[in-house]
C-alpha cells in the first residue's frame, strides 16, 4: 500500500513536471469540464450541451458537462471562480451570473470581472413580452394604456431573474405599475399564463416560442432592439418605448489567471463550434443570435452589461441576501 502510494506520488510529480513544460503547446491534454450553473434541462443547459459537443471536436478532447445548479447560478459560478486556473474548468456564464447576481446579491460570492478570464460571448437570446389571448390588447401601447386604467399582474421565472428585471425596466420606462408574480422557473409561470391565471408574462423567447407559434400566447414585443429572425411579425418593445433593450446571453468564462494560451485555444474552439452550420441551425431554431466574440469583446460586454443593469436594479429595489 505504502509502496504503491509513494511510487504513484513520484510518478505523478515527474509527470506534472513534464507537463508544466509542455502545457503551453499541448492544451488540452485531458478532458475539459464545462460547469453549467443551472439544472439540466434549462435553456443555458441546452446551449451548453450543444456547444460542448462541437468544442470537443475542435479541441480533440472530451468536454464534460457538469450541472452545478443553485442560488440563481451563483453556486456554479463560484465553483469555477475558485477552481484551478488551468483552463480545464470553465463556466457557461449568463446575464444572471455575470451582471445581475453580482448587482443584486448583498453578499458577493465572487467578482464577475476580477475572478474570471473572459473566453467568448457565444449567443444573445431575446426575451419576449406576451399575454394570454383573452387579454384585450394586441400592442405594447394598448397594454400600457390598459395598465394605467386597471390593475394587472405579470408572471416571471423568479425574483431577480433577467425576466423579472425586464419587467421592472418595462414598468419604469412605461410609467405603469403591474404586480410582479414570481414563480419557480419559467415552466410554472407559463402554465399560469396559458390558463389565464395571470394575464402577462416576460419569458425567454425559446421557451415561449412554441406557445406563440400555436396562438396560445400573444406576443406583444421582443425585448431586443431588432426583431427576432424566428418571429419577424413580432415588433420590438423599443418601437413603443425607445431605448428599451434587454436580452439574455451565454458566454464562456475561465477562472482568472488562466494561461492566455489556454484561453486562446478555448476561444478558438468556441468560435469553431459556433461556425458549424448544424450548431447555427440549432441556435436559429432556438431564436438565439450567434456572436462568438473574442475574449476582449466579452470582457467589454460584461462591463457594459453591469453598467446597464445597475440603475434598473437600484430602481426596482431588488436585492437578495
Amino acid at each position, binding site marked *: 500500500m505504502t509502496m504503491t502510494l509513494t511510487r504513484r*506520488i513520484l510518478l505523478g510529480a515527474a509527470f*506534472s513536471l513534464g507537463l508544466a513544460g509542455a502545457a503551453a503547446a499541448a492544451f488540452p491534454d485531458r478532458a475539459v469540464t464545462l460547469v453549467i450553473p443551472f439544472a439540466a434541462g434549462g435553456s443555458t443547459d441546452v446551449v451548453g450541451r450543444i456547444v460542448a459537443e462541437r468544442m470537443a471536436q475542435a479541441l480533440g478532447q472530451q468536454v464534460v458537462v457538469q450541472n452545478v445548479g443553485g442560488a440563481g447560478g451563483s453556486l456554479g459560478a463560484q465553483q469555477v471562480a475558485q477552481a484551478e486556473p488551468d483552463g480545464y474548468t470553465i463556466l457557461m456564464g449568463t446575464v444572471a451570473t455575470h451582471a445581475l447576481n453580482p448587482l443584486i446579491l448583498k453578499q458577493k460570492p465572487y467578482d464577475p470581472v476580477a475572478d474570471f478570464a473572459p473566453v467568448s460571448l457565444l449567443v444573445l437570446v431575446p426575451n419576449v413580452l406576451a399575454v394570454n389571448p383573452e387579454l384585450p390588447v394586441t400592442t405594447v401601447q394598448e397594454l400600457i394604456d390598459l395598465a394605467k386604467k386597471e390593475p394587472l399582474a405579470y408572471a416571471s421565472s423568479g425574483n431577480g431573474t433577467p425576466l423579472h428585471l425586464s419587467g421592472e425596466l418595462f414598468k419604469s420606462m412605461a410609467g405603469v405599475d403591474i404586480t410582479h408574480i414570481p414563480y419557480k422557473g419559467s415552466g410554472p409561470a407559463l402554465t399560469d399564463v396559458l390558463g389565464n391565471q395571470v394575464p402577462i408574462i416576460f419569458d425567454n423567447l425559446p421557451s415561449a416560442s412554441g406557445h406563440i407559434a400555436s396562438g396560445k400566447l400573444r406576443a406583444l414585443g421582443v425585448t431586443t432592439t431588432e426583431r427576432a429572425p424566428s418571429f419577424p411579425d413580432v415588433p420590438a418593445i423599443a418601437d413603443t418605448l425607445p431605448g428599451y433593450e434587454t436580452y439574455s446571453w451565454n458566454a464562456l468564462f475561465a477562472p482568472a489567471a488562466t494561461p492566455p494560451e489556454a484561453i486562446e485555444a478555448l476561444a478558438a474552439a468556441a468560435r469553431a463550434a459556433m461556425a458549424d452550420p448544424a450548431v447555427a441551425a440549432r441556435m436559429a431554431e432556438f431564436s438565439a443570435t450567434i456572436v462568438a466574440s473574442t475574449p476582449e469583446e466579452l470582457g467589454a460586454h460584461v462591463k457594459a452589461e453591469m453598467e446597464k443593469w445597475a440603475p434598473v436594479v437600484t430602481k426596482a429595489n431588488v436585492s437578495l441576501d
Partner: protein
Amino acid sequence: MSTPPRDNTDLIAGLFLMATGVFFGWQALGLELGTSLRMGPGYFPLVLSALLVVIGLVVLIKAFGREGEPLGQIAWRGMMFILPAPVFFGLTVRGLGFVPALFVTTLIASQASVRMRPLPALALSVAVTILATLVFSYGLGLPFRRFGPWLPF
C-alpha cells in the same frame, strides 16, 4: 416507585417539538412578517412554529399520568461511524477525488458494525471503490475527478 407514572418518550418528544418550534419561530421573527393579506416571508413559518409549540405542549402534558415504553438501546457506535461517512465524502470528493474519497467513506461506514473485522472491511472498501469507479466514472462518465488536486498526481 413513588413517582407518578409518566411516559418519558412522549415527555422528550413534546420538549423536542417545542424546542424545534421555538427555534424556527425565533428565526422567523428575523424575517419580515407582513400582514395576512400581503404575507411577508416570515408570516407562514411563524404560524407553523406557533402551531408546533402548541402541539409539543399538548404531547408533553399528555405524557403525564401514563406509563410508556422505555427508549431502549441507542446506537452510539452506529452514529459515530455512519453519520460521518457522507460528511467525509462531501468534504473530500473535490479535493481528494472520487476514488480515495469513496474508499475512505466506505471504510468509515464499515466500522459501525462490531461484526466487521479490519481485513474484510478493507477488502469490501476496495471492491466497492473499484466497482463504483467502473460504473459511475468510466461507464456513465459522471463528471467526477477520479484523483483530485490535493493529491500530487
